[in-house]
């Protein structure tokens, strides 16, 4: 009696397993990458009712972030400015620019402008702006170089893992308080300059900045030195890295 299956058929189960494994790996990989906030959220750049350019306002003109986002230092939310704030200038400047028609409409009718939300944490995560900016975490750490964005988009994933990365190593983000809204600022790489800067920043206190005056530092070394110094000065230690820090 001839064999029903050829010899080659012996390989079929192995092939099936192999294919399934590949498919499985592919599926896992797909979900792994494409379903993450990094893929689904980063780069989110919806069109806004008014094509407001942060590049012009914050970059070229050098407006401080807090001119418009005025409550960022006092409240959990960083507010979107009222139309009134825009009109402070635009009642004089660019009065007839057609792009500003929605603003003039809003001002005339009192109907607010529906700006589209870009940076969003989930409802169950209670993020607070004021505590971050008042303790020396710059806007740039979470929002990127807004001052270079023509149209604002989400640069960081704003996922829990991403939050925790920073909360576990806050020294990577801390900087002097008056540099918080200076998005382009990086710590000086010259040891002497860095020491001088921090000396001016803070009086005598705990924590030492171990840097030689004439040393030349790499940018991330400078940040780490400064960050660790500020961390001990401000008694910042893994701030509330438990669920209740963000989830209530």
């Amino acid at each position: 009696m001839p064999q029903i299956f050829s010899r080659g058929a012996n390989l079929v189960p192995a092939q099936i397993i192999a294919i399934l494994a590949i498919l499985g790996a592919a599926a896992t990989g797909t979900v792994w990458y494409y379903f993450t906030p990094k893929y689904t959220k980063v780069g989110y750049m919806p069109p806004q009712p008014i094509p407001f350019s942060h590049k012009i306002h914050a970059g070229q003109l050098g407006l401080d972030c807090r001119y418009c986002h005025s409550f960022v230092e006092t409240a959990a939310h960083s507010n979107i400015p009222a139309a009134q704030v825009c009109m402070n200038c635009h009642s004089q400047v660019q009065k007839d620019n057609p792009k500003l028609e929605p603003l003039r409409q809003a001002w005339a009718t009192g109907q607010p402008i529906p700006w589209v939300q870009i940076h969003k944490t989930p409802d169950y995560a209670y993020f607070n702006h004021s505590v971050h900016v008042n303790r020396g975490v710059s806007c740039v750490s979470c929002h990127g170089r807004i001052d270079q964005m023509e149209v604002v988009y989400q640069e960081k994933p704003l996922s829990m893992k991403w939050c925790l990365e920073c909360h576990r190593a806050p020294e990577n983000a801390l900087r002097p308080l008056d540099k918080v809204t200076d998005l382009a600022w990086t710590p000086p790489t010259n040891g002497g300059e860095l020491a001088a800067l921090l000396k001016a920043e803070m009086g005598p206190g705990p924590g030492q900045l171990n840097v030689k005056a004439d040393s030349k530092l790499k940018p991330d070394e400078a940040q780490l030195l400064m960050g660790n110094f500020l961390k001990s000065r401000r008694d910042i230690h893994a701030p509330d890295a438990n669920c209740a820090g963000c989830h209530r």
Partner: protein
Amino acid sequence: MSKRIVQHPKETGEGPKFWRSFGQLEATSEFKSWQEREFQSGASELSTDVGRRGFLKIMTASAALAGLSMAGCRREEKALVPFTTGVEWSVPGKPIFYATSRPSRRGAQPIVAATHDGRPTKLDGNPLHELSKGGSNLAIQASLLDLYDPDRARRFQQDGKEATEADFTKWATELMAKAGTGESIAFLGEQSSSRTLARLQEEFAKKFPGALWATYEPLGNDEAVAAETASFGASVVPAPRFAHADIILTLDCDFLGTESRPDTTRAFADRRKPEQKMNRLYVVENRYTTTGGMADHRLRVQAGKVAQVARQLAEIVAKETASSDLKSVVEKFPKLETFSGNQEKWIAEMAKDLIANKGRALVLTGSRQPAAVQVLGHAINAALGTSAVEGVTRIGNPAKSIADLTKALRDEKKIKTLFILGGNPVYNAPADLKFREALKGVDVVRFGYYEDETTYEITKINEDGTVPADGRKFVKWHVPAAHFLEAWGDGTAADESHLSQQPMILPLFGGWSEIQLLNFLLTGKKSDGLDLVQETFKQVTGGITITAWAKFLHDGFVKPKDSGRKVNLAFQGGSAATLVAGYEAPKTGIEIVFIPCNKVEDGRFSNNSWIQELPDPITKITWDNAALISPKTARDVFHMQAEQGNGIFKFDNGSWITIQTSEGALEIPVYILPGHADDSISIALGYGRQTEGRVGGRRANMMSHGGFGAKHTQVGFNAYPLRSSKGHYITAATSVTKLDTDKAQTTLARDLFPKGYPLGITQEHGALEARGADLVREATFTTKGEDGKEHEFEKGFARDHEWLEQHHAQDAEAEAFDKLGYPEPRSFYTHPKEGRAALNDPNHQWAMSIDLSTCTGCSACMVACQAENNIPVVGKEQVIEGRELHWIRMDRYFVSVMNGKSDESKKIDIDEPRMVMQPMPCQHCESAPCETVCPVNATVHSDDGINVMAYNRCIGTRYCANNCPFKVRRFNFFDFNMRQKENYFVPNLWNEKGMAETLQLSKNPNVTVRMRGVMEKCTFCVQRVQEAKIAAKVHAKDSSDVRIPTDSFTVACAQVCSAGAIKFGNKADAKSAVNQDIENGRTYRLLDYLGVKPRVHYMARVMNPNHAMPDAPKDEIHELKIASAKEGAQEKGAK
């Protein structure tokens, strides 16, 4: 490491027995199921009529829906909408606090409203005002929800048809143009403390002298006013000063419950702490009240016999003090039977104590007792020369009574238009007035918060219980009333200070305030109320400036220019004697006592779901009222006891009885309340409403399981039809019998629940395995010598230490166990580099202390917690299943003495047990058993000592609840927050979801609104902790000073507590109040022998009994003592 097995200490058969219910004494299987399981056995099963197939269908449909909604992978576009022009003070996301006041029958209450983006979300006492000092009460907490009640009156109505405000103003203008001297117009209002309303009323009376103005309060103080007028004159009110009272006797006066104000509770509690000279409280009453629960000695007598007690006492006091005024009053008081035996001795010894403490003794008489009895109370106070009563000026204009009004309506027929301002007289007027009939032929303008019984009469009912479109007969006009948070107004506090009432939000449904309406009738113009209030302010303070007005709004109150003068409180024997001569003793036999409800008051809160779901402080009944009777009455009158033998404590709450009075009959279920007077039936008023309200209306309770075949039933039973104008508090029953349900009149008793009415009683819920005596520790306060310094109360606290000594081996094992450091509180997010374990925040370690000596059990904390933490209500049926969600519960125990070791002689006194209350929030154990069993680390410990819940991580295994020795964890069996408003109490498994729009406004934005399948529990108000921490860090800027200032904030339950029984604070801060409490000798932690190290500390309850009294505790309170209190205090503490 072996598993440590802990056996709870066993009852010894001696000493005090703490029990929750007859079921516990009887050890019924139902009670055991409550005690042994984290939820009742049925709670985790789907108890609807949905079979397996039905369930599968639903699940398939859900899965299909889930598939359709894959769009959820892309985020939905959301708009951020800023104001066009900035709003002053408004910072998005930050609450703004406004000082305002809540009008109430007993004077306005100074409050502070927190608003989020223009929505009031929480009310609390005004800390600046000395009457409040930040404390508030149940009514204040719950009145917030009324603002957002979707069932509020939303429209103007003319003859049952929707009308506009303009229609009404046109009609009213014409009416007033023709009014002449006003003889055709009458008003029926509520008691008010508003000076603006009084001023407008006077102006109205000037312009229309013929108009009749009457007021009616179903729980009013007419008798009290009569007694005070006869005793002290018309303009003087005697006010108790608890600070000066060493001995307090209350004659049926619930001054810590239904007759309380936050300031009286606080003043009493301040003297209730054993660290200083404690006051002593004697209570005479017919049913247990929260006041009775606090009593050192309690005499239960029929409410009608309180007069006898008063008279007997007055006789003794008159003799001993030789007071001629009192003597003449007693002589004029008709002779009554006298008590004998133990009761006589009780009264005599108590009288001795009062006389011995002359000048510092205080007698309080219930405001609804007959005026003659209250006069006796005033006379005794005068004879004792007490310094604990002061005179204050009476507020408010004199007005006619509802009886006068009804008479005028019926006989004189001059009145053509009647304005009913608030209240609900058709529902709650005395039955003999036949108020509804008296309204025939009169144009009624109903100004009300709800469209209720007074607004319409139901004339037709469909077979399914609904009312057809033409089934209602409406009054001429219904004008929607504004909530007190929506309108300008003012009020007068009990200390005569003038309180502001400012609008937090525009009227949600275009309602008017009372002063707006009255002003419109006067002037024909609609004012926003501000000018009216400012005019009054001018008169009260003698002028108005911008700064004075701004300060008034900021502080919330101002002292009137004529305040602070001494009011003469001189007892007038003559007029008092005349009044008491007219006293008529009630008929003997079984009495019916109409008691004010601890929760719904006179029915005004009946559509408030927070109130309805709150277990009554005494009976623990939710969503209903019942006829309260004593065990003896149940046995002897209604023969409700099961066969002797093991069933000696077997009573069935919910059995039907029928009550007949001269006015009507009522079929009502009973609740057997230990400590109730025999031959007396107490029924709380304010239930059995016939409105369409979804919470308290005629079809609000949904019974018989779920959405399939559910039966709509009313909420509670209406006792108002039994009341007459004379017997408005106590009335004699013409007959009371056990109801033969076959012959019952109501379908509820005959068809729906013939075997007994299901009451949602929570007294067995959360029953712990431990001995009650270990949970609630008590001692007596004894002072030796005159200096009052030698306190003996430190004895007898450390009960479970006695047990530990007996089980020394186990104790050693426990210690070894502790050394292992397991179960170590842990955080999933321990910092990987620094390796910081939990509980090592050097700046903050949160803890709570609860003083059982001052906690009255009023349960305001439960509702405050509900408001602060977005806790949904679940409905009566779900409460019965044990699914209620209150994060803090109020355990009420009865305490009686076990007097024998063998089981047979273990007869327990169920007639006169004591009562104790124990608030039970999450204990935030440092070694929390719940944390170790969570498979997903949804509940972990924070480094500042809070047992935290991450809702979005919880998968609902409920292992944690299973492992919690305190049973404080709650599970969202259904999407209680997302029920449709039409099916308010149907478990929402398959209906479309949705929360009423107005209710969405009421939520606290800082707390997650939990969904189905999630565990939740007390979080120590972690949102407030975080806010405070953030504020401290923001303040610290680049310094390292991040500690929160001492006691600068507190949690919701501690904030509301006007007795100051709950304190919350930072254990790591030596100066904090909670730290001082923790170091107090009478502080203990629950179930310490389990080694869970709770962060909630209880302070033992200390009583101050008079050892000469016949009911003085012998030794039983000390019975279980053994170890010294020091040992109890020196706990191992936090690491």
